[in-house]
């Protein structure tokens, strides 16, 4: 095991990316992720990589397209408004099946919003985000260490499934300093890159494109192929953490930073004898619907509370998984206001009373 070090999230994620083999970073400054381009500007030249401060997020994501065409591991990072600007490019990458890693250190919105931590880009991240029939895998870390390790995972997923992958953090994860052990380079096998545009030497010319005009069914066939790929991702790549779930009668579903507040509230509730546990999705898409659905159908579990740093976005996915079997309640704060462990405890007690949960 590696040495324990202390790093800020925005900088640690860069080290994770470099360990994953990322050598190309294109990005545009935006708070609260400014340490990412600053760190990459200094660090990438040391490892033979290339950093460009692009003229916009739009240019950044399209530079990624270029580096991806060259078969290189490339990434960009931004925060909410900047990610909105990248959506056209992400849609194109999905259509052309090019790998890319996009880090979103989410801030408050809509609009210019504010620069405080938020999880309000859940919908955008998990529903494709841009135009057309597509999804992107979305990884949701809850600590600086997990953020760093997920960068390695993100590059693997991008190459294995030839898809843009989103790492969804928030302003707290980005600027918080925590102890961590850096990840090891991945041992996962990635398929050969037979699409790389490195000159048609001793082979037929290759084309990278998302346009499929003819025959009329060409795009539908391509989209069905993409959907099969997405089904495969859903069957193989769902990740979640279970916390005190074995005897839980009340199940909290929460991701990222807000899940840490939940852990504190769960510990407090447990002291009062309330059997509360948590499912923490580590992949937001594919969503861990299976485990939630299983719990919803068990006689033991009485209700769910969805906790987010927004006004209720993931709750749609929770409700789809619960499928009406149990009530799903919501607690959240938004736009930079953080969930409070005492307020959440009150909610837990309120729901427990309403659902007649037995005390231990």
């Amino acid at each position, binding site marked *: 095991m590696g040495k324990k070090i202390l790093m800020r999230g925005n900088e640690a994620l860069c080290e994770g990316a470099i360990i994953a083999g990322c050598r190309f970073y294109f990005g545009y400054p935006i708070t609260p992720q400014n340490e990412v381009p600053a760190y990459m500007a200094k660090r990438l030249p040391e490892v033979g990589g*290339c950093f460009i401060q692009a003229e916009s997020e739009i*240019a*950044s994501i399209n*530079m990624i397209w*270029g580096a991806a*065409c060259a078969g*290189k591991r490339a990434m960009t990072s931004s925060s909410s408004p900047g990610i909105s600007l990248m959506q056209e490019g992400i849609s194109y990458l999905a259509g052309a099946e090019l790998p890319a890693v996009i880090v979103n250190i989410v801030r408050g919105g809509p609009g210019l919003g504010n620069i405080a931590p938020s999880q309000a880009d859940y919908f955008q991240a998990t529903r494709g985000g841009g135009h057309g029939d597509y999804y992107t895998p979305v990884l949701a870390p809850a600590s600086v260490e997990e953020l760093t390790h997920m960068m390695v995972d993100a590059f693997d997923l991008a190459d294995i499934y030839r898809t843009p992958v989103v790492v969804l953090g928030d302003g707290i994860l980005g600027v918080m300093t925590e102890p961590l052990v850096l990840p090891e380079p991945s041992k996962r096998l990635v398929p050969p890159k037979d699409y790389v545009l490195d*000159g*048609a030497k001793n082979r037929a010319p290759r*084309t990278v494109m998302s346009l499929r005009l003819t025959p009329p069914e060409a795009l539908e066939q391509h989209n069905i192929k993409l959907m099969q790929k997405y089904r495969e991702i859903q069957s193989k790549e769902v990740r979640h953490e279970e916390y005190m779930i074995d005897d839980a009668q009340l199940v909290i579903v929460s991701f990222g930073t807000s899940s840490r507040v939940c852990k504190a509230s769960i510990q407090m509730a447990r002291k009062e004898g309330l059997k509360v546990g948590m499912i923490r999705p580590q992949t937001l898409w594919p969503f861990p619907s299976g485990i939630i659905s299983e719990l919803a159908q068990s006689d033991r579990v009485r209700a769910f509370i969805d906790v987010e740093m927004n006004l209720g976005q993931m709750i749609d996915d929770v409700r789809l998984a619960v499928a009406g079997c149990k009530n799903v309640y919501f607690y959240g704060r938004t736009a930079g206001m953080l969930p409070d462990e005492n307020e959440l405890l009150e909610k837990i007690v309120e729901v427990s009373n309403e659902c007649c949960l037995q005390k231990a």
Partner: protein
Amino acid sequence: MNVVYKRPESLKDVKLHYCPGCGHSIVHKILASIIDELGIREQTVIVGPVGCSVLIYKYFECDGTESAHGRAQAVATGLKRAQPDKMVICYQGDGDLAAIGTSETIHAANRGENITVIFVNNAIYGMTGGQMAPTTLIGQKTKTSPFGRDSQMAGFPLKMCELLNQLQAPVYIERVSVHDVKHIIKTRKAIKKALTYQMEGRGYTFVEVLSMCPTNWGMSSVNSARWLQEYMTEYYRLGVIRDNGAGEDAK
């Protein structure tokens, strides 16, 4: 037997989708023949635009990629930085390069990316059916300037070569035309020079090619060539605007 004419090897033997009298076919053939001449087909990557020449990758025996509307030079930046030994050529129209992609154009040029940009300016949007382009001439009628382009409403036609000439980094900027044989030969020379400079690693090279769009101009091919000569070259002056390589060669 002495071969005096043949299809460039870099140009696929397929039917092009361009309208009769359109300049794109001419520019494609020139580009393909220069790629042949310089022997760079196996190291070339062509970045296409969105516009009439969106399918350019279907016509060249080279690797090629699409790019989102206006983003060709950002894509080319990523491609070239990732593989500096490859030849990266952007082929863009006036809407792609001078309207939606102005920012990418100026910044790629300003960074001095070692790429070659072929800018085909026909003063109109072709693929979408003849709307006003940033390069549409004053008074020119289009679908979206039905009474003729009015500078009060729509500003003035953008001179991209002159705009880029304000920047320090570009090494070569020239405006040429394909309306007659004499100018086609000059276009060949310009594109060859631009690609040669890229091979030599000199930096950003930009060739604007004035070109005809008979379909959307509503003219015959012959009249289109005349109109280009008469009106376009009057506003868009042909010639070398910058050639940093020329001085070095003379030394």
